[in-house]
Each structure stands twice: as C-alpha cells, then as structure tokens.
C-alpha cells in the first residue's frame, strides 16, 4: 500500500511539474543540459521500465 501511495504522490508531483512547465515555458536550462549530454536523456524512463518489470516478477514469485 505504501508503494502505491508513494507512486501516486510521485505521479501527482510530476503532473504538477508539467503544469508548472506549461506556465513557465519550457526551461532553457533543461534544453542546455540535454544538448550537453544527449546520452543521459530518458534514463529515468529506462530505469522505471526495468523497475516495473522486476516489481511484477517479484510479485508473481511471491517475493
């Protein structure tokens, strides 16, 4: 239950961040960071996908 609540809080936080981004315009600093290091782009997404897969596997195995 705690995990689900934390995920919901994190998702709500992300949605707030997106809303802020819409209000403030997309950050030039974020763009500079990506131009400087394209290989780091999307790492959060890759890590999340890996974690999701492991979480389901653990659940099925009763871990």
């Amino acid at each position: 239950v705690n995990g689900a609540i934390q995920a919901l809080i994190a998702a709500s936080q992300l949605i707030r961040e997106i809303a802020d981004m819409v209000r403030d315009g997309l950050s030039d600093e974020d763009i500079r960071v990506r131009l400087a290091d394209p290989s780091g782009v999307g790492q959060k997404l890759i890590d999340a996908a890996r974690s999701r897969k492991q979480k389901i596997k653990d659940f099925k195995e009763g871990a």
Partner: protein
Amino acid sequence: MVATMLTLAKRALLALLLLLSFGCATTDQIALATERGLEAGSMALDAAVDQEIIRCQSPDPAARARCIAPIERVSDGADAPLRAAVAALRAYWTAAAAGDKGAASRALLAAKTAIAGLPPEYFGGLPALVQKAVRP
C-alpha cells in the same frame, strides 16, 4: 484515485499540446515536452501496476499470475516502444547539438513512430505532440 490521476495526466498533456500549438515552441522544446510526457505516462503506468499488485494479492501463485497478467501485458508492451522513443530522443539531442536539422527531424519522426506503439490509455496525448514537431 488512479483514474483521477490519469485524467490529470491527460489534461497536462493536452495543456502542453495547446501551448505548443500556439507556435511559441521550438523543436527543442517539443522534444523536451515529449520526454516529460513520456515520464508522466510512465508514472501513470507505474501507479496502475502498483494498484493491480494490491488488488491481486493472493496466497496462490497461479492466481497472482493470472490476475496480474493484463497489466503485465500492457507494461511489457510499452517496454520496446519506450526504449525506442528514448533512443530516438537521444538521437534528436545529439543531432541538435551538432546543428544537424535534418537528422534531428528524422529522429523526431522516429520518436513519433515509437510513441505510436505505446498504450494510449497512459500515453494518449503524445503522438499529436510529436506530429506537431515533425510537420513540414
């Protein structure tokens, strides 16, 4: 709660799309917004998986596997398009950093193709966002 969150995520993506439709966005901004949209969709999918894990609690491993199977299929189905979209976004920023507009445009097109394969209930607003970026 999850339904509310998904609605909020869709509204956020729609707001982004509206913002970008007013012509004030560069392709860099659209690539960044696409990445943020992917993160929002990924978080919504995470929340759905967590909810299903709670709902599917059972001492019987076979029952757990049966119950979790539908969301597992959605999650597994999102895996390859997400990785392809990330690869395309990395290609975009690499090309953008090099000043290669042609390669950047092709990379965004690849991102659009990848995103089209994502489950629409979590990533529904994104194809239109990338379409805007690659429109001639």
